[in-house]
């Protein structure tokens, strides 16, 4: 039973890492968003697995809550994507760099 | 004297400053208020001076709790050493005001008043945090007065001097906190008051050395001692007259005061152990700055160098670990403050009239302004250390002290009689006396106010030279107390 839990957690970790790497490597905002969702769901997986492991309902509830929050985030994220696209006519996250450190004082 | 006279002396100028700041005073009104304040304070201080008993211990104590949770107290007190500096401040500031009488703005006077508060507060504090408090607070009006009314590249030099000084004092702060904590660890309750801090004895030697230098760096920058002097030149040559007057004649001395007040009682052993280093740093500075001053063209920079050289000599005195050196140092603090202060006022007038700081562009002043020249000469001879002025008495005593410390030091430090004379007289010849064909027609002679302001300085310089013992008996017990009780030196 325990090793089964372990394998679940391992899977969750893999998903988590994929998500993280996705944030780092992909330029497209949508994919960045999906990667975040992926990471959240990886955590959810852990919770559910844990709940199954020591027959308690708590982790399931937590998973539910997390999904809810993820939905809230999703709303903000999608609306933001719309605004960004309207602003720059592009989904490439690398071109959003107006806040780059430009002027550097000397002396 | 239990109505808190010291607090009044500290906070009266600040109060006047803020009142004039808020109320619609003009420049003139502010000036009159400031002058009146300085006179009142002079009266208070002289009453302190006469009620001061001839012991080496603190008097006029005041003690209130400030931040009880960390045992930080508002505690004041003075002893002979602070007394003379206090008397000095009270005497110098009114005459300085008489000199700055015309053409200064309101902000100028307010800054001067605030500086006075900072100085006196620093002088009275018997609690390390309180001392640090005033020590830093003193910096702000100086920052303002140099930056707002200075000349030349004033913004840069102001920032430079501020950062430089604050760096030093922050290291001091760390040392203070460390001392407080180790006091807490030893005795189980918080206190930063000097009397408690001196009882710490759970510090290892390494810790002590670090803390010692933490303190010393702050004071060495303020004084300034040899490697930390570079802020001095730009600051002195760019400051307005009032600022450079206070910087040179009083604040620099507060560095020395800090060493005597805090470093000596807290680290008596290290004080004795490192005395040779500082005696020699002092002597080195004396000669180094003296030589540097010779070819300096900017007259204010020359005086900056010369006062740095004298302050090195003062440091030699206080580290010479005998009564002659220390008394001499205390005396040279007065002498130098009066002479250099006077010289900076005079030069400030010259700059104000002619707008010239370069020696080659001057000359022929003596014919235009004889009285100016007379006072200039008196101050100059005091700097040179001519017998009959208090400059000689102090230098002689310090040389005695240095000789008592080590004959070589004594003989080397005796060269002071040559150094100051050489560059001062040469400057006097080129800048004041001889006709160099420059146009100095705008130079005016002293008016009545200025004469009135300069007379006390000149009088004291000569009186203290002819009858020094008048002024010694107040401070001598304190010095004895330092040597016998604090440093445990019998000589």
């Amino acid at each position, binding site marked *: 039973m325990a090793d089964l839990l372990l394998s679940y957690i391992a899977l969750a970790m893999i998903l988590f890492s994929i998500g993280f790497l996705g944030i780092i490597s992909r330029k497209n905002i949508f994919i960045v968003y999906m990667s975040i969702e992926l990471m959240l769901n990886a955590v959810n997986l852990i919770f559910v697995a844990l709940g199954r492991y020591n027959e308690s309902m708590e982790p399931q509830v937590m998973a539910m809550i997390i999904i809810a929050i993820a939905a809230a985030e999703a709303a903000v994220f999608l609306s933001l994507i719309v605004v960004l696209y309207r602003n720059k006519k592009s989904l490439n996250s690398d071109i959003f760099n107006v806040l780059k450190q430009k002027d550097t004082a000397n002396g | 004297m239990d109505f808190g006279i010291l607090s009044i002396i500290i906070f009266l100028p600040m109060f006047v400053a803020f009142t004039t700041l808020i109320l619609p005073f003009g420049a003139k009104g502010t000036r009159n208020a400031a002058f009146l304040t300085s006179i009142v304070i002079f009266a208070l201080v002289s009453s302190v001076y006469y009620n001061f008993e001839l012991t080496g211990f603190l008097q006029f104590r005041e003690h209130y709790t400030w931040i009880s949770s960390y045992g930080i107290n508002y505690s004041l007190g003075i002893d002979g050493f602070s007394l003379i500096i206090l008397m000095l401040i009270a005497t110098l500031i009114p005459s300085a005001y008489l000199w700055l009488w015309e053409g200064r703005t309101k902000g100028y006077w307010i800054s001067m008043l605030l500086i006075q508060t900072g100085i006196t507060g620093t002088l009275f504090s018997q609690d390390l945090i309180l001392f640090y408090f005033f020590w830093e607070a003193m910096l702000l009006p100086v920052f303002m007065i140099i930056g707002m009314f200075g000349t030349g590249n004033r913004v840069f030099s102001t920032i430079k001097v501020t950062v430089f000084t604050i760096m030093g004092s922050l290291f001091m702060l760390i040392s203070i906190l460390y001392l407080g904590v180790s006091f807490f660890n030893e005795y189980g309750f918080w206190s930063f008051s000097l009397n408690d801090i001196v009882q710490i004895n759970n510090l290892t030697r390494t810790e002590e050395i670090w803390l010692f230098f933490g303190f010393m760096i702050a004071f060495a920058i303020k004084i300034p001692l040899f490697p930390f002097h570079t802020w001095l*030149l730009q600051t002195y040559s760019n400051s307005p007259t009032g600022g450079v007057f206070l910087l040179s004649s009083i604040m620099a001395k507060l560095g020395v005061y800090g060493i005597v007040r805090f470093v000596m009682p807290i680290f008596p052993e290290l004080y004795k152990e490192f005395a040779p280093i500082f005696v020699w740093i002092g002597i080195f500075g004396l000669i180094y700055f003296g030589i540097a001053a010779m070819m300096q063209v900017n007259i204010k920079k020359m005086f900056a160098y010369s006062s740095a050289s004298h302050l090195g000599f003062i440091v030699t005195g206080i580290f010479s670990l005998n009564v002659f050196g220390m008394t001499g140092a205390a005396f040279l603090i007065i002498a130098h403050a009066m002479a250099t202060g006077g010289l900076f006022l005079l030069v400030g007038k010259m700059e104000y009239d002619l707008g010239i700081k370069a020696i080659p562009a001057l000359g022929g002043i003596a014919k235009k302004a004889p009285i100016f020249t007379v006072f200039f000469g008196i101050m100059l001879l005091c700097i040179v250390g001519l017998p009959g002025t208090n400059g000689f008495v102090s230098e002689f005593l310090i040389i005695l002290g240095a000789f008592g410390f080590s004959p070589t030091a004594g003989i080397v430090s005796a060269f002071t009689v*040559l150094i100051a004379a050489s560059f001062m007289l040469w400057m006097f*010849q080129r800048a004041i006396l001889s006709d160099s064909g420059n146009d100095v027609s705008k130079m005016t002679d002293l008016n009545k106010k200025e004469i009135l302001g300069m007379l006390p300085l000149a009088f004291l310089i000569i009186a203290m030279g002819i009858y020094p013992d008048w002024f010694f008996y107040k401070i001598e017990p304190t010095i004895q107390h330092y040597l016998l009780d604090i440093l445990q030196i019998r000589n």
Partner: protein
Amino acid sequence: MDNFLLAWIVLVPLLSSLILGTMYLYSIKVTKIPNIVFSMFALTAPFISFVLGVSFFFRLLENSDVIIYRAYKWLSVDGYDIDMGFMADQLSIFMVLFITFVGGLIHIYASGYMKDDDGYGKFFFYFNLFLASMLLLVLANSPIIMFIGWEGVGVCSYLLISYYYQDSENVKAGNKAFIANRVGDLGFIIAMITMFYYAGSNGFDYINLELGMANVPVEVLSFIGLALLIGAIGKSAQIPLFVWLPDAMAGPTPVSALIHAATMVTAGVYMVARFHFLYDMIPNVGLFIAYIGAFSALFAAIIATKQTDIKKILAYSTMSQLGYMFIAVGLGGYSAGIFHVFTHAFFKALLFMGAGAVIVALHHEQNIFKMGGMRRKTPLVYFTMLIATLAIAGIPPFAGFFSKDEILLTAFGSGEYFIWIIGVITAVLTAYYMFRLLFVVFHGSNYKENRELHSLSKNMTMPLVILAIGSILAGFIGVPLLLGGQNYIGIWLEILNSKALHVEHSIELYLMGLNILAAVIGLLIAYKKFFNYDMSKVPEYTGLIWNKFYIDEIYDRIFVDKLKKLSIFISYKLDINFIDKIVMGISNGFIRSGNVVARLQSANTRMYAFSMLMGISVISTYLIIVMR
């Protein structure tokens, strides 16, 4: 009893000088005060002091023990008191007498000399201040009080030399004098401090010092002696610190007469005599002093033979006469030295004043070869100058003869034959250059018959006469027993003389004759070369001697230039380019690293996420490391 009058000897000139100073400032700022008022205050002071001095002189005559007056406690540190004390013993009172007397005369002379100078009041302010300091110097009862007077004298000479301050040359000369004196003072201070620590345990006045020195190791004593000697050399313009004296002639002539002939320069001699108890214990240092004196005397005499400026000649002669005095005091013949100080004061003051008279008469012409024939124009000056010249040349019975003879006798008697020979040669040269001056100025065929001379006022000529009489008579207070005389001065100052010298009368006679012979030789050479000297061609001097052996240049090369270079290096190179660079370098370092850090702010989300990943992985690695 009325010892406090001792203080008044000093106070009277001091007060008068202060009054004069304030009056002068008042007169230039507010309303002009007539010179007569100034003169009133100025001229009375020295005579009051003189009278007081005389009164003490008589008190010392009846009982010869030292009179001491402690005015107040000057300084009291650590239970150790230094008094502002005055001491009158034979030596100091003797000095007081001739200082005030000659000084008074020079005051009178100056009142004529400066009468149409608009700094009249200022001049006498300095003059009396100088007198006060000089009197304090001789009357002080402890080295430190003496030092006050000592420095006061120095600064007054600075002020008086640079009296015409508009011309920077004069001020330079003043600075030179002050700095050279300062070098001496350095020695003095070092000596004082060493004395203080080794011999001053029970008081710092001369008497206690004398007691204290009994048990001080001799090498320390010789160190003190040498250090003091530096001071003496500085004041009395001996080798190697003499350079200031010739330049000091930039001041008005009365100044040269008072300071650089009669009083100030003799302070060195006085000091050595004052510290006789020290030098008696270290004879070899004394010998060193004597050698310095001898060489200075010869050196100055040689230079003087080729000078053309009348005052410079006199200045060098002063230096060489001071050399004689140093020979005497160095060899322990203090009374002889002081005797020469005394006589020299008369005839040298006279010479300067005569020269001054001539200079004034010729509208400030100082080159002797542009004068000539003054004998007929100003006979009075001529005669007085003649007397003085005879006196300095050492022709009996004039004053200089006796004193110089006694000095040479001392040299011979103490077996220092080399010094003695130098002394004799110097005597020849002295006679030569003095008579050269006399002949050229007064006898030389004058080539400008028709030029009207500036008239000399009464109070310029009157002192000349008095001093001339003095130069004739002054010698007779020290006539050696040999000539059936009575060596009053020797008796008066016998407290100083430790060792008696015994020379057979026959040898003494020979020596005396030899001296006269030397003087006469010099006179004859001068007569042959310069009597009726053809004034049409002014000789152009060149060469080593004319250039004073290039001593000034050498000093500049060695000390001054090096110092200036060093100063420039420090204040314009080292401080700015090195020390300040370090300070500013640190702050610039912060800013530079700030610019490096700023590159990380690329505003790229993925980069930020990546840096987060890096951070997290570092932390996780740390975890793994720690947890096992």
